[in-house]
């Protein structure tokens, strides 16, 4: 299944939104951190794992999802949250630690949750595998429609949880898609150094489909994801969808990625301009429409950031709320 023009435009729009969001955060992150870098200073403290280059993995999969579906992401969640339709203003406010944030500032950028679109996160590697499959199990038990997708990095596939959950998801034929974003790095360690057989090939060990999508290309990802999502919707169980992608920046802001060669870095391609050009070349939309779209996206992101900055901080004692339901 190929994406319709409308879907392609949506994919571009969502990727761009993620990119502009990350651009804006990148800038804001350095406020208060110069001349001396201190991760805890400024309006955006804490670790910040951004999605530069990985936007295609989010849109190619999430394009297939509806309101009944659920998505779990990891420590690098912005692009996935945006493609999933998480409320952008409240997400920005959460990242800024504001009272108006998705979690009232309790979560921060690694812990984005939006119950309205069944979206959750977690900052521990592979920790979202079980919860993802568990939502899938709930759908099945409640005889409700809907599948669950869990995003993981290439580094997650050697964590025990990955293995345990894939086996049970396959055993119980859960409507579940395990997405692996292969950006070739887990911090400084390459996929080859960490993983003796790639995850998609390990699918054979769980008697489920496994596919590798090359090229960091939204259209190709869309097509492969269509198969995995359909497989899940038809009650045939889980799949492993591994997607080649690029981490254009360091692991988090502040990591200069000195462990990568200059050549390697120089050879990296930004997928967004490539896709933009393709859409224009293939006349999926006119230059004028593109301009409008881009202006709208920019406006939305700006508004989200403004909302976040304008919002108030929670009161200190709000820390005590929500420990228990």
């Amino acid at each position, binding site marked *: 299944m190929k994406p319709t023009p409308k879907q392609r435009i949506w994919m571009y729009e969502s990727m761009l939104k993620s990119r502009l969001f990350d651009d804006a955060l990148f800038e804001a992150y350095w406020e208060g951190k110069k001349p001396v870098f201190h991760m805890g200073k400024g309006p955006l403290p804490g670790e910040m794992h951004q999605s530069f280059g990985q936007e295609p993995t989010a849109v190619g999969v999430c394009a297939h999802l509806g309101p009944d579906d*659920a998505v779990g992401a990891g420590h690098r969640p912005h692009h996935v949250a945006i493609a999933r339709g998480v409320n952008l203003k409240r997400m920005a406010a959460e990242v800024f630690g504001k009272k108006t*944030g*998705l*979690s*009232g*500032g*309790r*979560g921060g950028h690694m*812990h984005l*949750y*939006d*119950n309205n679109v*069944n979206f*959750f996160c*977690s900052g*521990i590697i592979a*920790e979202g*595998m*079980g*919860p*993802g*499959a*568990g*939502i*899938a*199990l*709930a*759908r099945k*038990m*409640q005889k409700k429609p809907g599948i*669950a997708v869990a995003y993981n990095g290439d580094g997650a596939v050697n964590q*025990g*949880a990955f293995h*345990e*959950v894939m*086996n*049970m998801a396959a*055993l119980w034929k859960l409507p579940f898609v395990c997405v692996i974003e292969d950006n070739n790095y887990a911090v400084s360690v390459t996929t080859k150094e960490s993983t003796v057989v790639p995850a998609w090939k390990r699918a054979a060990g769980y008697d489920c489909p496994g596919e590798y999508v090359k090229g960091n290309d939204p259209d190709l990802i869309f097509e492969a994801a269509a198969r995995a999502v359909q497989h899940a919707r038809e009650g045939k169980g889980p799949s492993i969808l591994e997607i080649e992608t690029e981490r254009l920046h360091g692991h988090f802001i502040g990591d200069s990625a000195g462990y990568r060669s200059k050549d390697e870095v120089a050879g990296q391609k930004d997928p967004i301009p490539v896709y933009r050009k393709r859409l224009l070349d293939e006349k999926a939309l006119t230059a004028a429409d593109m301009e409008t779209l881009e202006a709208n996206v920019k406006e939305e992101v700006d508004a989200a950031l403004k909302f976040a900055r304008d919002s108030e901080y929670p009161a200190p004692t709000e820390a005590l*709320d*929500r*420990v*228990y*339901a």
Partner: protein
Amino acid sequence: MAQEAPSTGGSSRTLTMARAGREAVIAEMRKDPNIFVIGEDVAKLGGVFGTTVGMAAEFGAERVIDTPISETGFIGIATGAAMAGMRPIVEIAFVDFIGVCFNQIFNFAAKTHYMSGGQFKVPLTMMIGYGGGYNDAAQHSQCLIGTLAHVPGIRIVTPADAYDAKGLMHTCLRDDNLTIWMVHKAIWGLGWLGTAIKTAMATVPEEEYAIPFGQARIWREGTDVTLVGYGITVHHSLQAAEKLAAEGISAEVLDLRTIVPMDRDAIMKSVAKTGRLVVADEDYMNCGVTAEVLATIAERNPKILKAPAVRVANPDIPVPFSRPMENFALPDADKIVAAAKATLKAS
């Protein structure tokens, strides 16, 4: 396996803790189709400790799910199901296995409500067995209550008899948080561990009832010394109180019942009266429940202690296999008696 002590029939039934807990689970499952049970050997076998006997037959394999030996995986799955509206019950037969799945418990299930700002609830109840005394050695005899109580976001109950087992199970199952219902194996009423401790069996009403979190229970009133325990050490304390009574010493026996939250007011009230405190716990001593109880006095009002408090707990050693050594590591009535006498002698 999965055998248990017989219960006397009739409307005023004396039940084992195993039966009483099960009764609460079954009652709740009949009312709420979102409750399901998941764990190793819970379906065909009915639970290594008989916790789920008969449930697969009544509720079917869809609601009573045998799993692979993948604790991280199925706790994660149960958590996700809870986030999506189900109310899972997870059995981990031995608390000793908590180490293979601790992350999924304390970093995700216990924190998701908080990290999501209350958007996602995790109404998940774990049933866990703990404790030694039957020579099952270092990896199958632990308590690890201190480990679980140290991390926020979990409610932990540890009933000492069948009445509380049922009432606290109802409370756990109706709560919208991660709750852990833990029973010491030796008082559960399991056939294969004998039915040695009769005081853990109790008259249990047929109807449903819920026992609130955070309410300690005074099993025996006394004036000279307070004996604090939970689970099996309540029974050791009761025995100790009998022995002390024979020597003219009046001991009050306080059962914490729920570890998190802890009924600190009840502890203070009792010790304010007696002025002497012995806390008995089969768990490791360091940074455990005994420390928390003593700390409560020290931070609220150390003056109420007429003499140093005494902790009777595992002396921070792995539980040894061999009987004489295991007995050395375990609390018992005699050790509590000796501790009580020591604190009565001191000043």
